[in-house]
């Protein structure tokens, strides 16, 4: 869906685009976003304008979930099918943070989302 000149994507469409499965938070599949950050460096996410964005990462620790909560990130996508342990999933569940896992690499995941019209965390393309 388009609002103004920026593309808004629902989490359900992201899952389809990235061939991703919900680990938790499927009830929030209708949330919409237009910006994406991709990093394994948590301070990068904390330094950026991450609020309301989606985080793509290859790290699957509880600190990724904490960083997302602190930054106002709306959902986390683990690339290369990284699977967090049950404690991490429980923390996400308790805080209504949707988690998804895609078999795609970080590069291909970013490429597919960029192609759809999404922007980086600072709005750049």
């Amino acid at each position, binding site marked *: 869906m388009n609002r103004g000149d920026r593309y808004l994507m629902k989490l359900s469409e992201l899952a389809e685009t990235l061939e991703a499965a919900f680990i938790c938070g499927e009830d929030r599949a209708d949330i919409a976003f237009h910006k994406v950050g991709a990093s394994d*460096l948590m*301070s*990068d996410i904390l330094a950026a304008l991450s*609020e309301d964005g989606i985080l793509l*990462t290859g*790290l699957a620790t*509880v*600190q990724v979930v*904490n960083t997302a909560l*602190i930054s106002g990130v709306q959902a986390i996508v683990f690339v290369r099918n990284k699977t967090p342990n049950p404690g991490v999933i429980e923390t996400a569940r308790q805080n209504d943070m949707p988690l998804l896992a895609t078999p795609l690499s970080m590069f291909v995941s970013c490429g597919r989302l960029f192609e759809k019209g999404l922007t980086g965390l600072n709005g750049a393309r």
Partner: protein
Amino acid sequence: MPPLKKCFHIKGRDFIHAGQAAITVQKLLRQMGIAQSLIRRIAICGYEGEMNVVMHGGDGLFCVEIDADRISLEISDDGPGIEDIARAMERGFSTALEEYQEMGFGAGMGLPNMENHSDELHIESAPGKGTTVRMLFHSPETGDSQED
């Protein structure tokens, strides 16, 4: 609004619970109806400070004080202290162990992030004497808070 002070203990190298003080304060500020942009800045500073204690500082204390016109964070620890504070403030400078870098931290951005997101940052530290970081945030009502 009467002043409110809450403190939380931080345990060194406890990466399971690291961040809980900052997340609890974030939730408290939301319940109090503080502006979202201000909460985000406070949460980021608190989280970076808390992670610094967990990684470097041994045990510590995380205190938030909420007044009508300002909110302050004081994060102190009994760790090894900072040898060169000016150097520690440089973006990219880090003494973090490789295992912390593999967890996504220790990129030398913690203190610069805290400086960017707070209105005032004061660090007291010396080798062998621990570290105390104080951060001040002006409430939006005063009209001088920085916005993203």
